[in-house]
């Protein structure tokens, strides 16, 4: 078991290495002078030269890469071109709204989607099942920003139940926080409900065809117990995997949602950085998002140990 965990951790390191390499090469391999991209359109030749000097662009490319990585490892993500502040500070300042939104979204999605998936599988082929499948395919297909504007139209403009935009920290009181996070959460959670409900249904359907579910029924167990202790328990691995990956990739949804609802989080930071071509910020956000992905995947792998004795006692 320890061997398995150690292997997983060791395997995560080269993945992060490749991510860093991609992010580095992205700037270097894109057409045009990186200094010009970073400096923006209005830079003078002297400014360009200064940037080249500062970034070490006159050094050989591998030296540049290793210098850059060693700075990253010391927590130095560079400074924003736009604001001149250290990128790491900007990111830290924007974490709270994003983390709040991500957590509320995933928790709500799990609470709704897992029961939906179980019921759909249990009542396979019935109206309920088809309804869940319909919600699922809709959640996948309707883009987040379309849902967002429909939500705004209905809840903020027609019904006037909730404010359209903005963010209040949970430390300023649960009421204002909930009021403002509600619409973004509802918007984003639909996709995750779709994702989680579908994997729950699919794996439940598969597991319910397994011999041990038949054994459980042959033992005369109640249907509820057969479903929860024997079927759902065996679906834990795929469901946890999908939840984890969904959580790890939530940044994609956050970028759009924050942009629509004007939440001052990482997503907004990214969009603003892209529009202003604030390259150090873009780099840092991508690295951070990828790190989150890798770490969560690592946690999923470790969760397998708890969920599946076949891995625990391998």
């Amino acid at each position, binding site marked *: 078991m320890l061997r398995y965990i150690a292997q997983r951790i060791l395997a995560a390191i080269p993945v992060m290495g490749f*991510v860093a390499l991609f992010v580095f090469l992205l700037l270097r391999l894109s057409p045009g002078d990186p200094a010009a991209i970073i400096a923006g359109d209005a830079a003078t030749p002297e400014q360009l030269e200064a940037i080249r000097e500062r970034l070490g662009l006159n050094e050989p490319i591998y030296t540049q890469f290793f210098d850059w990585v060693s700075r990253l490892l010391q927590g130095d993500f560079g400074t924003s071109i736009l604001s001149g502040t250290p990128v790491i500070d900007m990111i830290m300042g924007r974490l709270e709204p994003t983390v709040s939104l991500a957590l509320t979204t995933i928790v709500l999605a799990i609470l709704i989607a897992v029961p939906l998936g179980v019921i759909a599988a249990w009542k396979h082929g019935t109206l309920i099942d088809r309804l869940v499948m319909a919600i699922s395919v809709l959640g996948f297909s309707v883009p987040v920003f*379309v849902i967002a504007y429909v939500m705004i139209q209905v809840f903020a403009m027609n019904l006037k139940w909730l404010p359209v935009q903005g963010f209040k920290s949970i430390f300023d009181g649960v009421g204002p926080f909930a009021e403002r996070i509600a619409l973004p959460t509802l918007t984003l959670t639909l996709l995750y409900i779709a994702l989680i409900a579908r994997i729950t249904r699919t794996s439940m359907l598969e597991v319910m065809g397994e011999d041990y579910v038949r054994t459980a029924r042959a033992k005369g167990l109640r249907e509820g117990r057969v479903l929860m202790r024997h079927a759902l328990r065996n679906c834990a691995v795929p469901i946890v995997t999908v939840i984890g990956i969904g959580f790890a990739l939530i*940044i994609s949804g956050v970028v759009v949602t924050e942009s629509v609802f004007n939440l001052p989080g990482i997503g907004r930071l990214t969009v603003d950085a892209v529009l202003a071509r604030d390259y150090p910020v873009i780099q840092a956000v991508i690295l951070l998002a990828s790190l989150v992905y890798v770490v969560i995947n690592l946690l999923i792998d470790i969760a397998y140990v708890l969920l599946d004795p076949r891995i625990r006692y391998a």
Partner: protein
Amino acid sequence: MTGLADTPASAPPAGPSLASRLRAIFFAGPVTSIATVMLFLIVAMAIFAPLIAPHDPIRLSPATRLKPPSAEFLLGTDAYGRDLLSRVIYGARISLIVGVGAAVFATFIGLVIGLAAGFFRRFDAILMRIVDGLMAIPSILLAIAIVALSGASLWTVLVAITIPEVPRVVRLVRSVVLSAREEPYVEAAISLGSSTPRILVRHLLPNTVPPLIVQGTYICASAILVEAILSFLGAGINPETPTWGNIMAEGRVYFPINPGIILWPGLVLSVAILSINLLGDAVRDALDPRMAKRGIDR
């Protein structure tokens, strides 16, 4: 295998014709049929845009700014006085080009790399690390970064959307090849002296086709979505070009005045993605219902 007599099977029933098989897939039920019709309409809209669109989708017309829907402008006009309906009709063109283009490129590139990875073990180890690395970067961020750096054009958007999809295809093809390699019929081919390329093409490649068709459909839907997001965030094809994402981006400021500028293209976009996803499901169910369980998924 029943009973004692192991008699030869009788003559095979004649297989249904291709046309009737396609009909069976694309008109499998009411929902699938509607999806087929919807997609057909959107494709027709894209192809015949100049014939259908009542107005020029690009030329500015300050005199008709933000008009409500009327007989002349069925859906009203945008902030530059352009006919919303005409822009939505033209928007189908970019979306479909990006969707089909990304699906074709990603499947083809992924197929070649995945086949190689599945069969040449040494190549595989390094390649899969690279694939893992690429997959760790959230696809929208990667696409945004590529477009931001390379400048917005149809090509860079297409490339930016295709690159994050490739590793998924590589993984799919590789897993199909790896499991097919264990099949006794592949081992039989090895013992029959068949060369590696021959085994790849004859015995392994055909196994990848059904899941790739399905995966390609999902990539198409996802590419249309990502293109719209890029445009919406201002990191896509230049704002003058009528794409659904661009129209919606321009409509953000005027949402309280004319929500239609966002909701109409949003509706068409959703219908397009929904139809393609539904047809993907239909194709999957027709080709092999077990695919959903093997992780060939949206």
